[in-house]
C-alpha cells in the first residue's frame, strides 16, 4: 500500500479493463516519472472525451456533434444501411474502404441468457429509419457468433414485410489459415457460400 494520492491513482487505473494491480502500479509510477506536460495532455484528453463525445442521433455511433462524421457526409449512399453491434465495428468496416453506405449501431446483440432482449437494442430507431422507404438494402453485419446470428435472424424477420433487400456478411475460412483447422460450422458455411471462379 502506498500513501494517499498514489494509491488513489493505482486504484483508479486498476478499474480499467485488462489492467491488473501490478500493471496499475507500473502505469502509476510511469506517470509519476513522466513530464508534467505529457500527464496534463492525458488528463485533458480524458476530460474532453467525456465532455464532448456523445452518440449520433441517427445511427448511434460515437460523435462529437449531433450527427456523426459518416451521417453528415453527403457523399455516403443513403440507400444502404449496414447494421453493426458496436461503434468499434464501424471502425473495422471503415478500414476496409469497401463500404460507402451508412451505418446503424445497435448497442449490442440479443442475448436472452444475459437478459438482453430486442427492446434493449436500438431496433426501434432502425425501424424508424426504414419507414420512409428510401433504404433499399440492409446489410446485417452483427458478429458471426451465436448472439450475432440470432440478432440477424430477428432483424431479417422483422423487416421482411418492408420488401427491402436484406443481406448478411459472408462467413467462412479466414484468409491465411489452414483448411484442416477449420471447424465444421465454419467449413460448412464456406461451402454454402462458395462462388464461381471466373478466370
Amino acid at each position, binding site marked *: 500500500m502506498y500513501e494517499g494520492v498514489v494509491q488513489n491513482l493505482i486504484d483508479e487505473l486498476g478499474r480499467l479493463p485488462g489492467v491488473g494491480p501490478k500493471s496499475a502500479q507500473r502505469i502509476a509510477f510511469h506517470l509519476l516519472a513522466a513530464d508534467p506536460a505529457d500527464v496534463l495532455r492525458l488528463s485533458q484528453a480524458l476530460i474532453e472525451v467525456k465532455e464532448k463525445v456523445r452518440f449520433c442521433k441517427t445511427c448511434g455511433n460515437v460523435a462529437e456533434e449531433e450527427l456523426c462524421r459518416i451521417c453528415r457526409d453527403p457523399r455516403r449512399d443513403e440507400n444502404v444501411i449496414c447494421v453493426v453491434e458496436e461503434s468499434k465495428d464501424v471502425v473495422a468496416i471503415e478500414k476496409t474502404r469497401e463500404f460507402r453506405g451508412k451505418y446503424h449501431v445497435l448497442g449490442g446483440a*440479443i442475448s*436472452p441468457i444475459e437478459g438482453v432482449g430486442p427492446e434493449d437494442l436500438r431496433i426501434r430507431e432502425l425501424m424508424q429509419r426504414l419507414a420512409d422507404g428510401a433504404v433499399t438494402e440492409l446489410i446485417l453485419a452483427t458478429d458471426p457468433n*451465436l448472439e450475432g*446470428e*440470432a440478432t440477424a435472424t*430477428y432483424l431479417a424477420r422483422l423487416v421482411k414485410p418492408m420488401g427491402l433487400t436484406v443481406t448478411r456478411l459472408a462467413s467462412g475460412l*479466414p484468409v491465411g489459415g489452414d483448411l484442416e483447422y477449420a*471447424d465444421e*460450422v465454419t467449413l460448412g458455411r464456406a461451402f454454402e457460400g462458395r462462388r464461381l471462379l471466373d478466370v
Partner: protein
Amino acid sequence: MVPYGRMSVVSLYRDEGIVLRTQKLGEADRIVTILTRRTGRVRAAAKGVRKTKSRFGARLEPFTHVDVQLYERRSLDLITQAETIRPYGEPLVSDYPRYTAGTAMLETTEKLTEEKEPALRQFLLLVGGLRTLVDGSHEPRLVLDAFLLRSLSVAGWAPALDECARCGSRGGLRGFAIASGGAVCGTCRPPGSASPAPQTLELMLALLRGEWTVADESETRHRVECSGLVAAYLQWHLEHGIRSLKHVERV
C-alpha cells in the same frame, strides 16, 4: 524439491459436454461454461477464441455438443483442445422461437447444476431436449416446458399432477399451489392458489411423462397456462429468476 517423475504429471482430463454459456475475458479470450458428462458443470478459459483465426472456431459456441480436453488449474481450467460432436446452435439460430426456448434450457441447466458435481441425468436430459428442439417435430415452447418439468423431476422437485400434493387423493384436483408442491384438491387448497383448467394439468402430466400425442393435440390457451405455471414453479424452487424465460417466443 519435487521428484523428477512428478514434474511431468500434468492434470489433463477429457470429457464431452454441452456449452451452456460464454463470457468475454480480456482481449480475445472467453470463459466457457460446459455441462460435461462425467465432471459436471465446468468453467474454463478458452484462449484466443474470439480471434477470427482461432483454432477453436465455432466449436465453443453455446449449444455445441463438444469433445474437450482440459487442463486443470487452481482457478479456471484451460481448454486445450475441442472437437465438435454435434453443433445444435447452427439450426437453432435460424429459427428465433426455437433459439429463445433453447437459451432458457441452457440457463436452467446452469442454475440447476453445481460446479464439478457430476450431473449425468441432467446432461442426458439436455442432449435429448436439444435434439428434440432441433428436429422440429413439436412446438418449441412445449419442448421447453417438458424439459423444465423433467429437470425439476431430476432435481427432486417434480410437481404432483395426478394426486393432491397435500393429502394424496386422486380425485377433485381444483387448484395448483406452488408452495404445496403441485395440484391440490378442493379440501386442501390453500388461499391464493391458481385454478388451472383440468386440461392444463393433463398437459403438464403428459409433458412430464413424454406423452407427445396428448401434448401436440392440446389447445393454445392450455399451453399458455401450462407455461405460466411451469415458469412460476421453477423459479420458486430456484429462488431466483431465469432471465431467458421472458424472452421466449411462442410460434
